[in-house]
């Protein structure tokens, strides 16, 4: 197995710690808030208010389960439109009360189903990209496992985008990529390598700013190790971002995403 395929397997491991477990390990006083106020409460997106070193923050992320039963409740971490609208509701709430936002990403992608289309999956994701670009409070986005396509990007438009060591991020799944390129989903490992989905690759091309290390024994065996590093980094970064003038913050966020693209003229 190549390096990218190993990362892919680690990022999808069913025992890999979830967003709620990371929230519990990093923050205090977490109060979960539910619902998008339009249609439903999406189990694939969790969020609420917590404190970090005594300061209120809004946290929101994609939730997977460790068992089939849990995963059915969480729709295997594939949000429906109401999940993205819940995310945006909590982020607008954070803006109103001047709380920074931390998002956790762990999804193979937005859900592909009839109901999701009827309720505007495309519009729901587009609205997240649009609103986050103008959100007048700091946002830090962290990939903790899988990051697939627009369904991941909807939560990943922060001022800073970080990734745990075995996280990944791609425009589509390596299986999908392999079946388009070679008509063979079985060549996913090869595709993963070509697609540059790993944290070091993404750091190199500026898609992420920081890699958060995982313990040698595996994240599922020692979450406290990564949680304490992440907590320290968050406190440091939020201290910087919260001092920044809002106009400057938004300008920097704009430039962060504006820079992507390779072309000749």
């Amino acid at each position, binding site marked *: 197995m190549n390096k990218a395929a190993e990362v892919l397997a680690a990022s999808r491991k069913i025992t890999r710690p979830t967003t709620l477990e990371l929230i519990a390990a990093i923050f205090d006083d977490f109060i979960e808030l539910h619902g998008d106020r339009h249609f439903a409460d999406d189990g694939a997106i969790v969020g609420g208010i917590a404190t970090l070193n005594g300061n209120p923050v809004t946290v929101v992320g994609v939730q997977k389960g460790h068992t089939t039963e849990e995963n059915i409740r969480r729709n295997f971490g594939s949000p429906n439109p109401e999940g993205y609208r819940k995310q945006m509701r909590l982020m607008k709430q954070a803006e109103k009360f001047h709380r920074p936002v931390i998002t956790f990403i762990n999804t193979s992608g*937005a*859900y*592909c*189903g*009839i109901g*999701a*289309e*009827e*309720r*505007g*999956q*495309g*519009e729901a*994701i*587009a*609205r997240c*990209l*649009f*609103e986050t*670009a*103008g959100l007048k409070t700091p946002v830090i986005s962290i990939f903790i496992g899988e990051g697939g*396509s*627009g369904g991941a*990007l*909807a939560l990943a*438009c922060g001022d800073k985008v970080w990734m745990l060591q075995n996280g990944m*991020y*791609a*425009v*589509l799944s390596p299986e999908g*990529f392999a079946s*388009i*390129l070679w008509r063979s989903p079985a060549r996913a490992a090869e595709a993963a390598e*070509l*697609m*540059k*989905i790993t944290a070091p690759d*993404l750091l190199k*091309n500026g*898609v992420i700013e920081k890699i958060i290390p995982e313990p040698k024994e595996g994240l599922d065996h020692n979450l406290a190790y990564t949680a304490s590093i992440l907590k320290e980094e968050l406190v440091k970064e939020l201290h910087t971002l919260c001092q920044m003038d809002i106009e400057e913050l938004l300008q920097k*966020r*704009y430039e962060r*995403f*504006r820079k*992507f*693209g*390779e*072309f*000749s*003229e």
Partner: protein
Amino acid sequence: MNLFKKKNYIILDRRSEAPMPAPAEHEAPAVPDGMWVKCSHCKKLVYKKEMEPYSICPKCGGHFRLGAMERIAITCDENTFSELNGTMQAKNPMGYPNYDKIIAKAQQKSGILDGVVTGTCQIGGVDTVLAVMDGNFMMGSMGSVVGEKITRAIEYATSHSLPIVIFTVSGGARMQEGIISLMQMAKTSAALNRHAEAGLFYLSVITDPTTGGVSASFASLGDVILAEPGALMGFAGQRVIEGTINEKLPPGFQRAEFQLEHGFVDAIVPRPQLKDTIARLLALHTHKGGGF
């Protein structure tokens, strides 16, 4: 490398510096050459002349897909279109196998350099920025060039206090450019956020088909969203959904009429009325007001 060496250049507009390659004569895929074409909607043979000037089937009213230059010709006031960033071309950020050949083939097929043509024009006498995607170029997929040209068009509109009209047709993010193509969704949406903050008007026009990353970014963000009759608009591809839920999709699923019913487009406008509708909306949104 000059991909259009053997073709004649035409200058679309005298104000435009950049030469536009002429559409390949024998490869216009929307309306095949010859006197008769088979309508993809009703499967009947129709006389080509009867489809003009809107490429609409005279038998069933079905709308044929248009290339960007054909769209510009029926949308802009005569001789007002002036192209922006007309020389931009793709690179190969991911080292995708044979990407240069794929691009060259798409350029020949579509007669344009990448999947969108942008510029300024007048529609019904109103100054506007215009971006028109082209499904003949790699199914209108969005890579760096499409994302950059659309972003620059939006930024131009913002800095010149102009409205922007975007015609969408897209299969989604261009997987050959990997994660960089995904970033174009965030980039274009952020540019639209600034355009909106400036109080300017964005009109999105959905044409067949508009899916994936484009539906999940600028296509869905118009102050007003119009769609052509029957245009497919959705996030997930139909085969992907059928594969996920293991059943056939109902007829009309994700079509413009479905999107109107579910509240995601403002109006469905047949092509012959489209220019006039756009002109009226532009006039309403650039009206200075103050009459009350």
